[in-house]
């Protein structure tokens, strides 16, 4: 009986997560101005870089790519919590559990950051050329990194949405926390530029990044219920 009950709860939670995810995607389709806003942000950022840096070498390309990725992430993820009005949060509070809510947000931002990373990479290749030696492994690292940044900033957006000056606060709260991950990503992506690593080191770094992502998800699931109640 107990097992059946917990099974029903699990199914119910999964159902709720999917419903919330669907709601976010549907909103994205209906309110297209926010999506196009981010796309335009990416395009204009890369264009500004294209005009200021005429012919970047591989190291500069790599560094600028990750910084752009970071700023795109802050802008894309910030709205996932900041767009929810207070009254609507109260409505979610009555119909769903905090764990389902934060998991749906994390999944939604994973999808969003995967798409944004691909668009960012395409624009970089189109405008700033392609200095990589192994393009597809760089693309994979780019998506992995984008998703990792998206996960951290989802939780930080949830924290910042409780305070004043939310957007700038998110950057202040986030930068010290993502810096180690960003350094690892820059280092790891050098393997796609033909730098030779010791055997197994890139693989270890990927595992470490995945472990970080798992840590963020676990922390979010544990901590978000405390933020949730007003």
């Amino acid at each position: 009986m107990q097992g059946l009950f917990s099974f029903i709860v699990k199914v119910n939670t999964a159902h709720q997560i999917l419903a919330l995810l669907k709601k976010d995607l549907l909103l994205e389709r209906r309110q297209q101005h926010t999506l196009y806003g981010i796309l335009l942000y990416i395009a204009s950022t890369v264009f500004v870089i294209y005009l200021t840096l005429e012919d970047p070498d591989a190291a500069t390309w790599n560094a600028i790519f990750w910084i752009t990725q970071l700023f795109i992430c802050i802008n894309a993820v910030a709205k996932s919590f900041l767009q929810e009005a207070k009254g609507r949060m109260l409505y979610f509070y009555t119909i769903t559990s905090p764990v389902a809510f934060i998991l749906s947000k994390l999944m939604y931002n994973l999808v969003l950051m995967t798409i944004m990373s691909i668009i960012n990479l395409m624009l970089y290749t189109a405008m700033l050329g392609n200095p990589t030696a192994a393009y597809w492994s760089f693309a994979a690292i780019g998506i992995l990194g984008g998703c990792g940044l998206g996960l951290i900033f989802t939780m930080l957006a949830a924290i910042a949405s409780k305070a004043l000056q939310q957007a700038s606060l998110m950057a202040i709260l986030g930068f010290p926390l993502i810096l180690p991950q960003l350094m690892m990503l820059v280092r790891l992506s050098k393997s796609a530029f033909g730098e030779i690593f010791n055997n197994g080191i890139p693989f270890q770094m990927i595992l470490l990044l995945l472990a970080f992502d798992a840590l963020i998800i676990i922390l979010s699931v544990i901590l978000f219920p405390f933020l949730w109640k007003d």
Partner: protein
Amino acid sequence: MERLDEEPNFDPSNKGYMRLTWWKLLTIDLLLYAVIGGLLMPVPALSQLGETIRNLYFHVCMWFAMMILFTISIIHSIKYLNNKSVIHDIKASAYAAVGSYMGILGYLTGAIWASYTWADPNNPAYASLGSIMREPKLIGAALALLVYGAYFILRSSITDIDQKARVSAVYNVFAYAMLFPTIWIIPRLLPSLHPGQEGNPALNFNDIDARMRLVFYPAVIGWTLLGCWIAQLNVRLELIKEKKISNV
């Protein structure tokens, strides 16, 4: 309104609450020993370090004290999330504040030390600074200070007292859990001049000469206890302020 006077001995009219407890006497003794013994007792003669090696009793102890105080702070944050009593929030922020202060002192003592051992005398100071700031241990320390700077900015940007306590406790736990693994990872990614490259600096017994351990470990305990003492005074001040506010 919940009770704010859960702190034992908290009663300004009772003179007993200001008495020197045993650990405060221990702090005074240990720090006197650390300063006098640290300046007078024998140390190994190393060509590059010379007598500056005595800074170990101050510089490294600051970082130890900082990490221990931050750990106490996060424990109070977890306690706050568990039982929502304001005293834990006050304590968490007080320990974080003293921890940050110790971190800044760690930077200052480190800067003095580096200027005698690392800085290139042929270049101006800022030219050396550019390469010194890339040290992984310095990056880790800078990250810790930035995180707690952000913690205090977050606190000041929320007006509601309960919400401030809750949100900042969540950030404290999140940041601590994210930050501390990375402090141990970054040094393994970057080359470094800083001692303690392999493994965790100063925790390894063989890193430090036996003569220095005699002073080093008591000094760590002394500085940490001093930090706790300062934090406790800050907590009392905050409690008095809170009482005044809630009595109006």
